[in-house]
């Protein structure tokens, strides 16, 4: 190798040692210098035994076997030897707010709309739904199933009496019936939609 040329392998090593030095700043100068020197010597020796000391891939593998600067620093600071055991992430407690919001938006309107309003507050306060979800939850359908009931109550008579009570012989059009049905069913669809959105990773 021409003296003075820096290969990617050299850069990888320099970065590694620089990172290590930084992480050891909590140690005394003497200990830090000694440890870095030892690691440096180790790398040099291990590198000389590689099939290709200038191969970046082989050097990186070598560094991986050495462990991350973080692991070495941790061992130095806490007197640990082998790399610390990684503890499993603690299970998150069951979140009741989101299911409650969905239920209240759906049925809360029957409690003089107050229940629905509480559901609305929970909906908007939740970090687990995006703005689009919250808008859907608010406007499809305001009041939830109680509104559906009202709409059904208003729209049903014309919709369900065929020809016997309509003024025009055309009666309720199919489109109207479908529209009414869609409005009535929409809170259920919204509830389903919000529930599915919860399943996305946070």
């Amino acid at each position, binding site marked *: 190798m021409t003296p003075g040329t820096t290969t990617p392998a050299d850069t990888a090593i320099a970065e590694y040692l620089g990172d290590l030095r930084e992480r050891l700043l909590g140690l005394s100068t003497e200990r830090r210098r000694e440890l870095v020197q030892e690691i440096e010597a180790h790398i040099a020796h291990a590198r000389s035994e590689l099939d290709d000391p200038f191969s970046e891939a082989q050097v990186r593998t070598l560094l991986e076997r050495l462990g991350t600067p973080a692991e070495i620093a941790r*061992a130095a600071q806490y007197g640990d030897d*082998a*790399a610390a055991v990684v503890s499993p992430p603690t299970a998150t407690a069951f979140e009741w707010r989101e299911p409650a919001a969905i239920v209240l938006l759906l049925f809360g309107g029957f409690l003089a709309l107050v229940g629905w309003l509480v559901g609305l507050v929970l909906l908007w306060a939740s970090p687990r739904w995006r703005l689009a979800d919250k808008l859907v939850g608010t406007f499809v359908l305001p009041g939830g199933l109680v509104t559906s009931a009202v709409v059904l109550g208003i729209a049903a008579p014309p919709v369900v009496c065929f020809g016997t009570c309509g003024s025009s012989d055309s009666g309720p059009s199919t489109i109207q019936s479908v529209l009414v049905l869609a409005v009535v069913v929409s809170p259920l669809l919204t509830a389903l939609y919000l529930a599915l959105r919860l399943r996305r990773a946070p």
Partner: protein
Amino acid sequence: MEPGGGDALIAQLRRGALQYCVLALVSDEPRYAFDIVRDLGSVEGMVTSEGTVYPLLSRLRRDGLVATTWRESSSGPPRRYYELTETGVAALESFVTQWRTFSSAVDHLLAGRTV
């Protein structure tokens, strides 16, 4: 006792036993740090990162269990060699006795299990 608690226990045992394994590796003759690290790394399941052995060696030295000497090397800069001190010898012997008793007791009680 919780499922999966075995993992944490084994990790602790490993951490505790590792230092004695290092002492054992230098009990016959002074050895070069790199060789100690490589020998440990070659045994399945002992160390996950070789670099963490260096802080351990440093601690053993501070605790007086090992001593270091520098030797000239034909293939590069002087090398650091580790050897046991008298304290280290005593500590190792004590551990070996206790470990043999303990591990054979556990083996005995686990004997005959296929899992």
